[in-house]
């Protein structure tokens, strides 16, 4: 078990004092799960709100500002509405898969969250294959999308699902390769190790040119992997209506919707961890106060999230063949070249370390 608790050390000790070790372990797991679920249900909702407000500011509007102070409760109200809505569906849908699909999507996106180092102590699982785990998990979500699109017995949904399959499989490569480029620097897949390496300077500084290239590719491919504009062919409102979730309503739709936003958070969080030193403060200005790490982590992540929102509200959508051309003709060759470039840099010892 790769549990690492310090800030919650007291709870951990108390639990193990109270009951036998096996039971305590299970109880502890459940506690972690509940805490993470709660935090990220709320975080997902506020990401939705953030997106709506940011979109409004890009578009000369005000955005939701009615429910609560400055609309802070707007998405809560939306969630309540979605919970109370009737779950409609197509009659000829493959019921089992149709109902299963949303859980695939939401569960995988929640799973990925568990490995992030929010601060030095606040990390649920610090597994030694962290990066690998993240890339593996984040691509499972596409199964949910494929299932949802295929089983809802709707042609628009089917087209959306097929596009999603094509897109995620292609862009998975770029995400993996650009992370691999950085792993060359850290020499470890474990997230806590990756952060530890960055105490000598964030990886984007350490790796300079190839790191910046890797970051740009990572952001492009990451946006594509979360199916967000300009790569939102899966939903492509003006082409496919609502795409793969055309036939979903109520809470099932909300799962897809929340998962999209949590996925966006995940991509931004990976970017933060790998390129921008996770919870490390710039130049170590707040090293003496460890709990501020959470603030730095979230701050950097939200900046990247904002960048993705900026993409979304500026760019038109690609066509499906252009999407693939971008990946196979541009991103992948550059990425492979970049990998060699980075390896060369490390071999020659040209990285910047403070």
């Amino acid at each position: 078990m790769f549990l690492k608790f310090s800030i919650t050390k007291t709870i951990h000790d108390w639990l193990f004092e109270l009951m036998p070790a096996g039971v305590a372990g299970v109880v502890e797991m459940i506690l972690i799960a509940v805490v993470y679920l709660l935090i990220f249900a709320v975080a997902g909702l506020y990401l939705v709100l953030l997106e709506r407000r940011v979109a409004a500011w890009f578009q000369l509007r005000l955005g939701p500002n009615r429910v609560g102070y400055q609309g802070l409760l707007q998405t809560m109200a939306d969630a309540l509405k979605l919970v109370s809505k009737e779950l409609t569906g197509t009659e000829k849908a493959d019921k089992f898969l149709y109902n299963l699909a949303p859980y695939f999507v939401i569960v995988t996106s929640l799973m990925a969250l568990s490995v992030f180092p929010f601060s030095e102590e606040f990390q649920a699982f610090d597994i030694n294959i962290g990066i690998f785990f993240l890339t593996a998990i984040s691509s499972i979500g596409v199964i949910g999308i494929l299932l949802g699109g295929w089983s809802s017995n709707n042609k628009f949904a089917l087209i959306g699902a097929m596009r999603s399959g094509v897109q995620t499989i292609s862009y998975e490569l770029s995400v993996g390769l650009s992370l691999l480029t950085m792993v060359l620097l850290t020499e470890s897949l474990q997230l806590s190790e990756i952060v530890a390496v960055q105490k000598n300077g964030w990886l984007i500084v350490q790796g300079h040119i190839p790191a910046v290239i890797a970051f740009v590719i990572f952001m492009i491919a990451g946006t594509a992997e979360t199916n967000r504009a300009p790569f939102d062919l899966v939903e492509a409102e003006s082409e496919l209506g609502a795409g793969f979730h055309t036939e979903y309503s109520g809470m099932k739709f909300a799962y897809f919707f929340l998962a999209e936003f949590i996925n966006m958070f995940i991509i931004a969080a990976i970017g933060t961890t790998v390129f921008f030193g996770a919870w490390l403060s710039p130049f170590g200005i707040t090293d003496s106060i460890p709990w501020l790490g959470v603030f730095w982590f979230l701050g950097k992540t939200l900046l990247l999230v904002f960048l993705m929102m900026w993409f979304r509200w500026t760019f038109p959508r690609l066509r499906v063949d252009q999407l693939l051309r971008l990946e196979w003709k541009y991103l992948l060759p550059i990425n492979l070249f970049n990998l060699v470039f980075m390896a060369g840099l490390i071999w020659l010892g040209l990285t910047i370390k403070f």
Partner: protein
Amino acid sequence: MSYVSEIFKGLNTLLTGMKVTGNYFLHARKGAITQQYPDNRDTLKMFERFRGEVVMPHDENNEHQCTGCQKCELACPNGSIEIIWDRGIDEATGKKKKKIDRHIYHLGMCTMCGLCIEACPTDAIVWAPNFENSVFDRTQLTKVLNQPGSKVKAGIED
């Protein structure tokens, strides 16, 4: 080499676009073009020529200027105006004269074309800048324009 320059050119166009939206984002505070409608009701003022609905102005003596000539009814393309009239005796001259009983206006059928107001020889009906025309029952959209007990102003001839 064109491969590389192509990429840089492409990225450059994308950044140009992001600069435009980013600029709007930074000036979002004062740049909002939308209105918070029910809140700004007090300050919201329509232009004077705004076509909201047809009304018949009455003066303080409860007198209007409609002689019941029915030109508006004829001009209306979709039958939104109905005039119910009879012949009454003019008090001043003692002659028989056309008099409106009810000037009925179906707001629900009106397309705001303004032909009735163009056609009116005595300017008895005018546009009102009232735009909040929604009601719960469609029958409420049928309005009687002349107030009860009103009569035509003296000396109005068509």
